Each structure stands twice: as C-alpha cells, then as structure tokens.
C-alpha cells in the first residue's frame, strides 16, 4: 500500500526546483514572448520532465540490465539513439534546413563566402577562453569541452548539438540552450558591436539592390559542388554538409517536390520536437547547477560577439578593396543564426540609410556561415574524436 502512494516530493532537490522554474520560464517565454517558440517550448517541457524525480523517463537502454526489457525511458531512448550513440537527430535537421535554404544570394556573389568564414573567429576565441578558464583552475574544461563550448559561436543549434554530443555529452543541454538563446537575442547582441566597429558613413553605404539572376543550372550544381569539395577537404563534415546539401538539391532540382516539402515541413518539425525535448531533458538540476554552467553561457556570449566582430571587420576590408559600394554591416550576418542575423543587418542598415535594402546581400554570408560552422565542427571532430 505504501509503495502505491510513492510520490516524487521527497526526492526533489533544490537543483530540481530551480530547473523546474527555469523550464516554466522557457515555456512562458515561448508562449507569451514568442522567443524561439519552436525550440523553447519543447526544451521547457523537456526540462520539466527531466527534473521531476522518480519517473525513469531518462533511463537509457544502455543503463538497463539485459533482462529488464521495456524499462528504458522514452527520452532516455531518444537521447541514447538519437544523440549519443548515432547522432542522427541534428543531421536530419540539416536535411530539412537544406530543403528550406535559398543559396541564390551566395551564388550570385561568391566572395561573400569569406564573410561566413571570418565570423567563425568567435569559435576560436571561446575555445581558447574555455581552455584559459581550465588552465587557471576556474573550471574543469579540457580540450574537448573547450571545442564544444567554442562551437556555440557558430550560432547554429544543430551543429552545436552534433559536436557537443560527440565531444562533451555532459555539456550538450547547456551549449544547445546557449546557442538557441543567443540566436534569439542577436537583435540585442549585434547592433552595439556593429556600431562600435563601423562609422556612420560606412553603415550608410548603399549597395545595389539587385543581385544578378542565378540560373537553374547554377542552383543545381551548387549543392553537388559543395558535397564533393567540402567533404573531400573535411571528411568529418560529411554528416552535416552532406545532409544540408542533399536537402538543397531536392529543393532546387524541382523533380522531387514531395520529398523536398516533406523534408522542409513534416520531417524537420517531427525531428525538432524530439531533438528539443532531448535537449531539455539533458538538463537535470544536479548536472546544471554548477558554476561551469554560467561560464559556458558567458563564453557563448563572447563567441557570438567576437564572431559578429570578425564578420564586420572583414566586411570593412572588403569595402576598402571592393570597386563597388560595399556595406560592412552584412559581415555580421556571417555568424549564421539564419535568418535573424541577416534581418539585423537589414534593420541596422536601413535605420542609417532608408534607401538601403541589405537583406538579400546579408543572406549570402548568413548561409555561408552555416557551411562554415559545419566545416569547423567537422575539422574539430576529425582532430579530437
């Protein structure tokens, strides 16, 4: 009889209670403020489920003894098979993203690729910062943890989850939340950095509003060339770049419309639900309530800021070299965070000069940044795993 009335109250820790409050705050932010609702709502529910004691919902199949069939929990099974053992969930997200991405602005002006590369400097700064914290005994970060923290600067949720789940799974929840939270906050993070690094005259620069027309053949060849070149140069980037470009080829080929639509809608939505629940569930109170969590959040912010600065500074160099008018603001979009960072560039540019329409120009570095962060993730995996 006593067992029948077993409750979770007596097993609740302060860590659990704080995380429950954070989970409720995420749900509130998603519903009331509409902050990244597709991510924060399932993450919030995942946090609630992970911090309610005695459920067994996080029990992974590998933790269950052989004769205890059916004992593994739902979220534990998703986490083990979708993230830790096979890492398929972020790759499937990339497939959907590819089917949703228009590479036209980047194909029309390929030099914008370089802005996507420059903005990856944030990853390097956060990586070295995390190692410095470990060096001075402020945190227990080794080289794998530093790489997982640094990739937050790629401003790409699935890439962050993919790399962290393989190099430092214990940081997966917090790095993913940091990446998605800062992506939601680019409108607050980037403008002061852009203003600090550019003059008013530079921000006012008017760029030709029309990009050259990109042919259907160019659009089809682009994902094929990316698959061949990028994967030959960085083989470990294949899971992300391969899925991203496959999704894009389905979109641009125009011959598999049903598949393309499924990848861009049903598939990405289903995987988002599972992936974000898993991310929330990767944040049990006893693992998150540590000073290192605040350091990860701080380093993530530094990574975003430095990535923005890197893109803008290269933008200034390109403005100096370029024969045509070039607005360095668009470099800030190189941090990925598609399409929010491009919208920020458009907003800041138009505020300075109402004639400016930078959105299409900013979309170039924006999608180049996605490829760039996948390349960095592949390179780090190749070296460290």
């Amino acid at each position, binding site marked *: 009889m006593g067992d029948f009335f077993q409750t979770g109250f007596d097993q609740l820790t302060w860590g659990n209670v704080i995380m429950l409050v954070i989970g409720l705050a995420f749900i509130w932010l998603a519903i009331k403020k509409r902050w990244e609702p597709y991510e924060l709502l399932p993450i919030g529910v995942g946090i609630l489920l992970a911090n309610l004691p005695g459920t067994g919902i996080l029990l992974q199949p590998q933790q269950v003894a052989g004769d205890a069939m059916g004992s593994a929990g739902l979220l534990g099974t998703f986490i083990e098979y979708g993230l830790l053992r096979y890492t398929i969930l972020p790759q499937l997200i990339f497939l959907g993203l590819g089917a949703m991405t228009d590479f036209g602005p980047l194909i029309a002006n*390929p030099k914008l690729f*370089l802005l996507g590369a420059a903005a*990856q400097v944030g990853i*390097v700064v956060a990586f070295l910062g995390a190692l410095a914290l470990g060096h001075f005994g402020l945190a227990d970060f080794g080289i794998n943890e530093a790489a997982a923290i640094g990739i937050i600067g790629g401003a790409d949720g699935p890439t962050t989850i993919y790399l962290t789940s393989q190099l430092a799974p214990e940081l997966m929840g917090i790095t993913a939340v940091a990446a998605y939270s800062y992506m939601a906050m680019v409108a607050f993070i980037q403008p002061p950095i852009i203003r600090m690094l550019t003059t008013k005259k530079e921000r006012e620069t008017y760029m030709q509003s029309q990009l050259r027309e990109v*042919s259907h053949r*160019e659009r089809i060849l682009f994902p094929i060339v990316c698959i061949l070149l990028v994967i030959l*140069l960085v083989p470990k980037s294949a899971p992300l770049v391969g899925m991203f470009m496959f999704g894009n080829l389905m979109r641009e080929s125009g011959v598999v419309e049903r598949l393309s639509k499924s990848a861009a809608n049903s598939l990405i939505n289903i995987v988002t639900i599972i992936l974000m629940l898993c991310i929330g569930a990767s944040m049990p109170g006893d693992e998150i309530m540590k000073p290192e969590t605040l350091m990860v959040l701080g380093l993530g912010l530094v990574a975003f800021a430095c990535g923005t600065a890197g893109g803008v500074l290269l933008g200034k160099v390109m403005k100096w070299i370029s024969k045509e008018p070039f607005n360095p603001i668009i470099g800030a979009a190189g941090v990925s965070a598609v399409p929010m960072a491009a919208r920020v560039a458009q907003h800041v540019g138009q505020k300075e000069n109402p004639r400016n329409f930078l959105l299409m120009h900013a979309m170039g570095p924006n999608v180049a940044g996605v490829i*760039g962060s996948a390349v*960095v993730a592949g390179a780090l995996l190749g070296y460290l795993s």
Partner: protein
Amino acid sequence: METAAINWAEAWKVSGMGFGLVFMVLAILAVAVWLIGVALRRFDGTNTEAVEESKEEESPPKAEA
C-alpha cells in the same frame, strides 16, 4: 579547483588550423562557384547567340520590293 594541464601548443594548433581551414575551404568554394557561374553564363550566352543566329538563318528572306 586544480589547474588543468592544458597543452597550449596543441590548443593554438587546433585554433589556427581550424580557422585557417574554414577560410581555405570557403575560399575554394567561392572560386569554384564563381568559375561555374562564369562558365555557365558564357555557355548560355553562346547558346543563346547560336539559337538566335539559327533562327535568323531559318527565317524566310524578306521579300524584296
């Protein structure tokens, strides 16, 4: 907390090589995409000209007054 033993030489190598690699890969992609664009535009241009020329050839001669 104890000071973690960090191999800074390796750390700088990972950072430098990683950042250098992403620049190199994206620069190669930029050149490849630009070359493909130029080649296709030339090919399409030639094709368009050829089509126009063939159309001109096929069109019946204007009746002379």
